[in-house]
């Protein structure tokens, strides 16, 4: 376990150290210029957030219907990472949007869906923190409902309007931009894996500690 962890740290460090260099070398986008380079962090952070949300949903379902404790630990770790990566995306997005679109925020489908998903996982963490004993199962239910909600929020807001770049951004990218994008994407996913391993270990150690205290009291 420690070897995998160390290997991932080294890999992630290399990726993140080289990333600014590659991003600086990438060609400028024609209409947006320099500020478009936020994209190399913005898109991968959203991608990592969605991976984390997906993992949390699956782990919650497994925990709820099979009762496996490791699934619960994976779920809570992933939920925290949804909030962290979501926060990075929600800060970098408006900074880019202010320059590129002239507004800080737009109520279009993708932004609103991302915001709602982020809030659902904050609610998940609040429930776990303040719900008292037994809130793990309740939170698992919330995570499952949150995941099922995503297509509905997307459709509802989509019927209003959309100003966000369309989904086929990646295939239409100039070849010089694809390299740094995939590099950053790999970096963020490695970071996700790293944080997951550390966080799940924390939960496991906490559970061990609780068990020891319970046994000592008995």
């Amino acid at each position, binding site marked *: 376990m420690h070897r995998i962890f160390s290997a991932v740290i080294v890999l992630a460090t290399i990726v993140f150290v080289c990333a600014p260099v590659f991003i600086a070398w990438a060609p400028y986008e024609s209409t947006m210029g320099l500020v478009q380079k936020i994209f190399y962090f913005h898109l991968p952070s959203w991608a990592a957030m969605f991976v984390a949300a997906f993992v949390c949903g699956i782990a919650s379902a497994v925990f709820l219907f099979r009762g496996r404790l490791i699934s619960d630990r994976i779920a809570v770790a992933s939920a925290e990472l949804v909030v962290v990566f979501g926060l990075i995306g929600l800060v970098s997005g408006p900074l880019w949007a202010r320059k590129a679109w002239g507004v800080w925020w737009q109520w279009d489908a993708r932004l609103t869906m991302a915001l709602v998903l982020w809030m659902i996982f904050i609610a998940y963490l609040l429930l776990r923190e303040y719900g008292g004993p037994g809130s793990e199962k309740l939170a698992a239910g919330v995570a499952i409902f949150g995941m099922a909600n995503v297509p509905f929020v997307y*459709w509802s807001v989509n*019927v209003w309007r959309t100003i966000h770049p369309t989904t086929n951004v990646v295939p239409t990218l100039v070849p010089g931009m694809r390299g740094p994008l995939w590099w950053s994407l790999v970096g963020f996913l490695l970071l996700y894996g790293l944080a997951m391993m550390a966080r799940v270990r924390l939960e496991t150690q906490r559970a061990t500690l609780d068990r020891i205290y319970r046994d000592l009291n008995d």
Partner: protein
Amino acid sequence: MKRFFTVALLIMRKDLRVETRSRELFLTTLFFSVSTVLVFAFGFVRDGRPVENAVAGILWIAIAFAGTLALGRTFERERYHDVLKALLLAPVDRPAIYVGKLLSILALLGAVEVVIVPLVALLFQAPLFREPILAILLFSLGTLGFCAVGTLFGAMLVRARSRDVLLPVLLYPITIPVIIAGVRGTAALLQPEVDVAMIRAWIGMLVFFDVVFITLSLWTFEPVMTE
């Protein structure tokens, strides 16, 4: 299957009987929703006329707030008398308990809406009933979606700490599609030319929402309510 519905209807009748004797929840929720409408009206009325689209928003926010209150109070009542624990101990299908509670809360909120919706139409001169069937479908399906998620979360939180504040914290993000559909559908009803296609689209989405979330609630009710 028959037993499932018998149990659900028994639970609904139990709740309705308690409610008709005291009328506590109905009256307090009704008065609360009228106050909410007033507060929002003062916020959004300009020169004696409501801001465009404000009526739809005000109505659905009042329904959402009243619904949260009703859910909280219903389950508080259950918790106080340990009724939910007794129901869970009974030799019945757990999902039947969920359906029974859902039907009783739906009946309560429906009764409140029967008063509040025409009242809002009156106060704001909003022609909500030009297409009565579509209007009724929109309100019932929206309320059903809200109650479906709310009943599960309310039941889930009965044993949790900070349940009063956690219920809206959990409920509102998940029921955002319902609120959007309700508000936009109502706004389409209030257009000078009723936009029937738009209302049908929102009703379609609400049907899907209700089906998916009632199914999910039926599946997750048992594992979530048991230790």
